[in-house]
């Protein structure tokens, strides 16, 4: 049982780390702001979810894991909205967005 738990937790952590790595690469390598915002949002949502899920499995269901779950809920509420606001500002202020079609309302 412990081995199964360990493997599940470890693979969750590794997947989360991979998402964080992708996010870091994206933020540093992409040329356009909208792409960078997208990459950053990936790390904040999926990376955080898998990392915290791994920790919750590792820890078992206790008060600490409830707190970790609260962290995940908070980030899933806040981070996409932050990305949305950044993207909105970018679309409103950037004159040359490249080859994207923007529905300006």
């Amino acid at each position: 049982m412990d081995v199964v738990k360990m493997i599940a937790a470890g693979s969750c952590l590794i997947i989360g780390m991979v998402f964080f790595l992708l996010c870091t690469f994206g933020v540093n390598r992409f040329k356009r702001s909208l792409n960078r915002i997208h990459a950053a949002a990936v790390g904040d949502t999926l990376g955080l979810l898998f990392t915290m899920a791994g920790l919750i499995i590792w820890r078992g269901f206790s008060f600490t894991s409830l707190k970790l779950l609260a962290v995940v809920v908070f980030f899933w509420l806040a981070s996409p909205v932050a990305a949305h606001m950044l993207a909105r500002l970018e679309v409103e202020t950037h004159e040359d967005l490249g080859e994207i079609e923007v529905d300006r309302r």
Partner: protein
Amino acid sequence: MSRKKQDYEHSFLYHFRQWVAGNVDPLEGTMEIRVPQKKAAETVAPDLKQIRTVYDPSKNKELKRFNRLYKASSLLLVLLLMGVLIWAMGFMPEIGAEAAPAHNATAGRYVEKGLEETGAVNFVTGMILDYRAFDTFGESCVLFIATICVQILLRVDKDSSWRKGRKTEEAEDSFRPGEDVVLQKVSTVLVPLIFIFGIYVILNGHLSPGGGFSGGAIVGAGLILYVNAFGFEKTERFFTGKTFKIITVASLSFYALAKTYSFYTGANHLPTGIPLGVPGAILSSGLILPLNICVGMVVACTMYAFYALFRKGGF
């Protein structure tokens, strides 16, 4: 009746109240600063082409050389500094060594007697708000002074020429944070939670990690989120410049009054008169809880004030 009113307008109290309210500028007409008359015709439009060639490294050889020199010298400086720091690390005592200067009687005293003397389960809070309360008082005052300095630099007066030049509606409009449905819906859920969490962190400062500074920062962040979602006219119903003044000045003066006794008695650890209570209970550890609340209010007000001043130059 009219004579009475005239008397009042000449009285010291009236002038003082006008001065406090900011209606009168006592320096007006007495200082040798004259606003220069604008000469619109004489201003010459800058030659953009010339400016571009001056600041383009591919055309300006001197700038190119300077850039190269700058990069090389900054790299050299950083490497030198790294070398000095690494060299200095060789002289540091080993980690955990008993002879290290950090391991003196003070730390042991805090750990052994801290709970008994301060009543705070959280040693850090016991330290910063009891043994080293002056230090924390100085930090809160630094926050207050920083807000005042930002206010001096950034505050936009109601009748300033910058505002007069624009139409009032346009000026108000540019201050209004973008009205976004997504942000508004999410912040209706998040803002109360953030406030409650911040208040929890402040009130449990002596029991669990946290305290005035972190809790105040959380409450301030909640206020900023609220402003961003709903605009300044909503927050100005309960938080204006007057509120800021009252809250910060009241908190800081309460802190000062509560802690001056030990200053005037030689900074000894004196009993406060408030019973320490049972360690672990919410109403325990004497003065630490009210001081935590004071610090939290000052920090929250400072965060919001900074945001409001940078955003629109006033509350």
